């Protein structure tokens, strides 16, 4: 290595090289802890995950909240768009990574996706637990002046625009996560859910619960978006594998669904 060699700067990861090979690590330290010499034998997966994102060990309450949240998010189910995308990869015989990339790409957006969680968390950061401010925000969400890769939200972030009432899994998740007792946002959300739903004109969605939970874990909106994307991948993976087994003939093709209605169409 020359004196002027460029380096990767990190507050997360440190390595010590093997004596016989400067390109191979003999020891790896995450946030100061020896990963393979100590954490591997002592930390749980969610403790390690929290350490990676936050930089410190979680309290038992924080670890419990992340554990419960990870279970709630792990499989959105095969009807959900990101999992549906992964199944399209699976059924066509695409590589494993393509299934996960499909799930990430489709599951990144404004409806039930990572960007919705981020927007909801940014709202939490601005509005805190102020019901009046939330009601004003939900009734008339501000729109960005400038165009972006993301289109503007078409519904209140964290709420289901196609919902009729709050779905039972959402209620169950909110109740379990609230009772863990990690922070102020989930209990406040549970207490004011109906008032918020009335302001939003839509029932609370799992993305909204996740946003509150990430705030209670002390994550930034950027971190919450990233972790939400990560935590939903297991379901995408297993459903992609399952549909590959079933084969394309047993996967919906929506045979009669697509109808051309443009110029020259016979719309009679």
């Amino acid at each position, binding site marked *: 290595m020359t004196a002027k060699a460029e380096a*990767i700067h990190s507050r997360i990861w440190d390595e010590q090289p093997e004596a016989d090979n400067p390109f191979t690590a003999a020891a790896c330290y995450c946030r*100061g802890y020896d990963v393979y010499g100590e954490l591997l034998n*002592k930390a749980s997966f969610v403790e390690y995950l929290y350490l990676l994102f936050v930089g410190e060990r979680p309290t038992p309450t924080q670890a419990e909240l992340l554990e419960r949240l990870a279970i709630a998010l792990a499989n959105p189910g095969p009807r959900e768009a990101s999992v549906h995308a992964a199944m399209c990869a699976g059924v066509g015989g695409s590589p494993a*990574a393509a299934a996960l990339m499909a799930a990430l*790409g489709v599951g990144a957006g404004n409806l039930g996706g990572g960007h919705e969680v981020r927007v909801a968390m940014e709202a939490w950061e601005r509005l805190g637990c102020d019901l009046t401010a939330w009601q004003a925000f939900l009734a008339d969400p501000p729109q960005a002046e400038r165009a*972006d890769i993301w289109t503007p939200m078409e519904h209140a972030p964290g709420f289901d625009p196609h919902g009729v009432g709050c779905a039972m899994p959402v209620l169950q998740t909110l109740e379990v996560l609230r009772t863990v007792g990690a922070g102020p946002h989930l209990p406040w959300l549970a207490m004011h859910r109906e008032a918020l739903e009335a302001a939003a004109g839509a029932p609370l969605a799992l993305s909204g619960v996740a946003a509150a939970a990430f705030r209670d874990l002390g994550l930034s909106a950027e971190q919450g978006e990233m972790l939400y994307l990560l935590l939903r991948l297991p379901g995408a993976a297993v459903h992609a594998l399952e549909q590959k087994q079933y084969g394309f003939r047993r996967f919906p093709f929506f045979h009669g*669904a697509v109808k051309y209605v443009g110029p020259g169409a016979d719309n009679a």
Partner: protein
Amino acid sequence: MSNKALFEYEDHWPTELGAVSVADGTVTFRGHDLLNALEDLSWMDLLMYGITGRRFSPAQLELIQGLWKISVSYPDPRIWNNRVAALGGSVRSTPGLSLGAAIAVTDATIYGQRPMIGVFDFLQRARAARDSGEPLADFVARELRTHRGVPGYGRPLRSEDERIAPTLRFARGLGLCNGTYIDLAMEVADTLKRYRMGMNIAAINAALIADQGVTVAEYKRMAVLAFSAGLIHCEFDAASHPEGTLFPLRCDRIKYDGLPHRAW
């Protein structure tokens, strides 16, 4: 609170784009028989017709291809999105996965899609503001105050953009360098000189394309593929080198700035 839209669209997808008939193999593309009635369409023509529903002249299609070639096809694996494609090739992922990842990464903020879309949108807002009577300098100053920058002006690695001169020469050769937006982009550049913010190619490209009547939503879809040639070149080049040899890093090239070593 309503699920009416879901009932309406259940097993029902009305579209003006087109469809394939599984029964007889007919492919309708915006009302035309794709397989038998669109022989005159080049691939770029098909792409633009599909996105916009409008046909573009040969010169306009040549302009789009030329802009992509000159401005976003650099064969250099150090550039971040190119590097993603090249890393994929280096560790022997598939070309498709490498390119897909690299295209996704091109949805970037300091280069790529965000500045491209941002300056397109900025020029449209600047024109609207000027048409409503606001001096351009005032609009630009307000943009700087509000957003701390103007997309398409300023550049992360080199302040001078070497692509501008050949791009303008190319557009002039096609007779497509005399629209409202390209003039506006130049005026903005003059206005920003006092802030030492040089124009970059994203502003020129956006202006030239906006002058062809393209909307910002259409530009987003066009821009997605703009980098693809350079990306795949870098992937293939890396795949032709010994595996794992693209920019290897020794352990001590991680400069650790974190907490001291500690016990769990």
